[in-house]
C-alpha cells in the first residue's frame, strides 16, 4: 500500500460490488490511491437501503447504526455508487431525525460520504485520469446519484480524459433504467418495459460500451441487452477510469483459458 499523507478514506464497496463485481472495488481503490488517498476497507455488509425502501425502518436503522460505527473514524467514506452514497448522505439523517443521540452521528457521516466520481472531482480536484479505451461509449445517469447528489458532469469530465474514448450521449440518458432495487423483481413486467426503452436508446447511439456509476442499474441494463442479443459491453465507469478492464464486461463470459 503506498504510504502517503493523503486523506484516510474508508471504502464502502457496497454489497452489490462486494458480491457481484469486485473489479469495481479494485478500480475504485486504484483511482483513490492514484489521487493520493490512503484507502482502507473495514468489514462491512450493506447500507440498509433494501430495508429502508421496503418500509422496514427497524432493520434499516440497525444496519445504519452498524455503518455509522464502522465508518465514523475515517476522514472520508467513498462508495462506487450514487445510490448507496445517497442513502448515507441524504437518508441517514432522515432515518434518525427523531433520535437526538444518533442524529449528530448520522449527519457527521453524511457530511463526509461521497460517491466515487464526485469525490475525485469535487473534493480532490481530479480533472484527468490515466486510462485508455479505444471506442465509443455512452453513459447512463443513474437516478439516485443524479437527483440526490447532483452527479452528472463529474463522470463525463473524467471520461473526457480517457484516451481514445468517444462519449456519445444517448437520448434520455437521465431517465430511469427501471431497476429500482426490489422493484425490478416485484414489478418485473413494468421494470422490463422501462429497461427496454433504455436499451433501445443505448443501442441507437452505436456505442460499443455502456457505462454507469451504479451496479444495480448496470446489471439490469446488461441483463436486458444480453437477453435481447446485443453485444454492447456494460461496465461500471470506475473500471474504465482506472484502466482496469481485464475482467469481462458485466454478464459476459470469461475467456475459456481463465475459467476456474
Amino acid at each position, binding site marked *: 500500500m503506498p504510504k502517503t499523507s493523503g486523506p484516510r478514506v474508508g471504502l464502502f464497496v457496497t454489497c452489490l460490488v*462486494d*458480491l457481484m463485481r469486485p473489479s469495481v472495488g479494485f478500480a475504485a481503490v486504484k483511482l483513490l490511491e492514484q489521487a493520493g488517498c490512503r484507502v482502507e476497507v*473495514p*468489514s462491512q455488509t450493506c447500507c440498509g437501503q433494501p430495508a429502508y425502501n421496503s418500509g422496514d425502518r427497524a432493520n434499516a436503522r440497525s444496519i445504519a447504526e452498524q455503518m455509522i460505527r464502522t465508518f465514523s473514524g475515517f476522514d472520508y467514506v467513498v462508495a462506487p455508487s450514487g445510490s448507496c452514497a445517497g442513502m448515507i448522505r441524504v437518508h441517514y439523517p432522515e432515518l434518525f431525525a427523531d433520535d437526538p443521540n444518533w442524529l449528530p452521528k448520522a449527519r457527521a457521516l453524511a457530511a463526509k460520504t461521497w460517491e466515487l466520481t464526485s469525490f475525485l472531482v469535487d473534493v480532490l480536484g481530479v480533472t484527468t485520469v490515466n486510462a485508455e479505451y479505444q471506442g465509443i461509449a455512452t453513459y447512463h445517469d443513474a*437516478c439516485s446519484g443524479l437527483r440526490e447528489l447532483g452527479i452528472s458532469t463529474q463522470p463525463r469530465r473524467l471520461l473526457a480524459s480517457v484516451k481514445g474514448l468517444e462519449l456519445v450521449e444517448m437520448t434520455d440518458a437521465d*431517465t430511469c433504467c427501471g431497476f429500482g432495487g426490489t422493484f425490478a423483481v416485484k414489478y418485473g413486467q*413494468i421494470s*422490463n418495459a*422501462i429497461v427496454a*426503452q433504455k436499451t433501445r436508446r443505448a443501442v441507437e447511439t452505436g456505442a460499443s460500451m455502456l457505462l454507469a456509476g451504479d451496479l444495480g442499474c448496470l446489471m439490469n441494463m446488461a441483463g436486458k441487452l444480453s437477453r435481447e442479443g446485443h453485444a454492447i459491453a456494460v461496465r461500471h465507469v470506475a473500471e474504465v477510469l482506472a484502466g482496469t478492464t481485464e475482467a469481462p464486461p458485466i454478464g459476459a463470459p470469461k475467456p475459456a483459458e481463465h475459467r476456474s
Partner: protein
Amino acid sequence: MVAPVTSPSFKANASQALANAQLQSVLSGMREGFAARRREAAGQLPEFEALRDSARDIKHHTLAHLDLYLERYVDTVTASGGQVHFARDAAEARAIITSLCQSLDAKTVTKGKSMIAEEIGLNDHLEQAGIVPVETDLGEYIIQLRHEMPSHIIGPALHLSAKQIEADFRRVHTDLPRDRDLSQPATLLAEARQVLRQRFLAADVGITGANFLIAETGTSVIVTNEGNGDLTQTLPKAHIVLASIEKVVPTLEDCAQLLRVLARSATGQEISVYTTFSTGPRRPDDVDGPGAYHVVLLDNGRSAMLGTSFRDVLSCIRCGACMNHCPIYESIGGHAYGWVYPGPIGAVLTPSLIGVDKAAHLPNASTFCGRCEEVCPVRIPLPKLMRHWREREFERHLTPAATRSGLAFWAFFAKRPRLYRLVTRAAMGMLAYAGRARGRFRRLPFAGGWTEYRDLPAPEGATFQARWRGERGGRA
C-alpha cells in the same frame, strides 16, 4: 360508494396495459411531448425555481392555517351572495349536490372538468336521481361516452387514439350525417362543440371544479383551454362549485403566483387559454351570470392528513407533471392505478382516500427515480411520501409475506458482518461456478422475477472483501 376501485389488481391491470398495443402507441407519443414542453417553459423563465419555492411556501402556510382560511373563505363567499356547504365525505357531497339540483328542478346539468366529481362518483349518482349530467370538457365528454375513468388528471382521454374517438362519436351522435368527415382532430373537436353547444343552452345547473378558492375575495378560479368551463358556469340558473378543502389560498396575489407555475408545469403553456375568476351569483348590473352560486367543499379524509407526514400531499395543484415524467406511468398509463388519481400523486393520495390496504401496490410501484419530485411545482417530496406509505404497510403487515421473509433473511446476515462474509463468499463462489460458461443466467431458482425478462449477470467469483483480505492481508 365512491368511484369503483381496481387498485388491488394493479399488477394485472399493468399487465393488460403493457399488452395493449393501442395504449402503448399513445403512451410512447406522450413520452416526449409533455416533458419537452415543460422544460422549455421552465427554461424561459429565469425565476421559475424561485417561483416553485414560493408556490410551496404559499401552500405550506395555507395548510398550516387551513381552518382560518376556510372560515375567511366562507365569510367572503357569503358576503358576495353565495353559499358554502361542507361535505365530510363523498356521500354527503353527492347528497348536497343532488338536493341543490332538485330544488332548482334541474333536468340537465353541464359539468366542467372536476377530479373531485370523479372522486365522489357524481355522474352515476345524478343519473340515478333522474338528472342528466353532461361533461363539457372534451376529454371528459369522450370518457363519459365510454363510461371510463380519466386516465390522466389533465388529459382524461389521453389513453385514446383519434380513431377510437371517431368510432365513439359515430356510435353516439346518430342524428348527424353518416358520411361526415371525422378524420382530423379538428373535425372531432368541431363536432363535439356543435353537440355541446345545445347542451349548454339547455342546462339548468352548471357544476365546475376549482383550481383555487381565494379566501380574500370568495372567488373560485378555473383554468381551462377550451372555454367550456365558462359556458358551464355562466349560462345556467345556478353554478355549483365542487372542490376539496385544500384548494383554498389566502389572497389573489397567492393565486397569481401559483398560476405562474401551474400551466408551465402542466402543458408548458405560460398560462392556460382561459383563467376564469367567479365570485358570487349575478349582480343586478351584471350582463350575465348564474342566479345562484353554491360551493360544496369536500373533506373526504383530507383534514385527517393535516398534522401528519402526509400533509404535503395536500399541496398538490393538480398539474400532472409528476405523471408526465414518471417511467411507470409512461409504461402503463393511468387506468392501471385502479382509481381516480394515477401516477406519483395518486400513489400517495389514493391510500389516504380509499385505504392503504386497497391501494397497497401504488406506493410500491416506483423505482424512486425522483423525477416526479424534481418537476413538482410545489416541491412535494413524492418518493419520501411513498416510502412513508411503505412503512405503514410494513407496520400493518400489509407487505407481502414473501417480501417480509426475504427481508428478514437478508437483514439477519446484513447485521452480522463476519457471518455475512463467510456466507456470501461461499454463495458467490458457487454462483460464479454455475454461471462460468456464459457469464450470466437465463434462469435461476428464486430469481424468476428477474430472469423472466432479462439475464442475471453472474458474479465474478470471490467477493471483494475476500479478495481484498487475500491481497492486502491483515485487517480488513
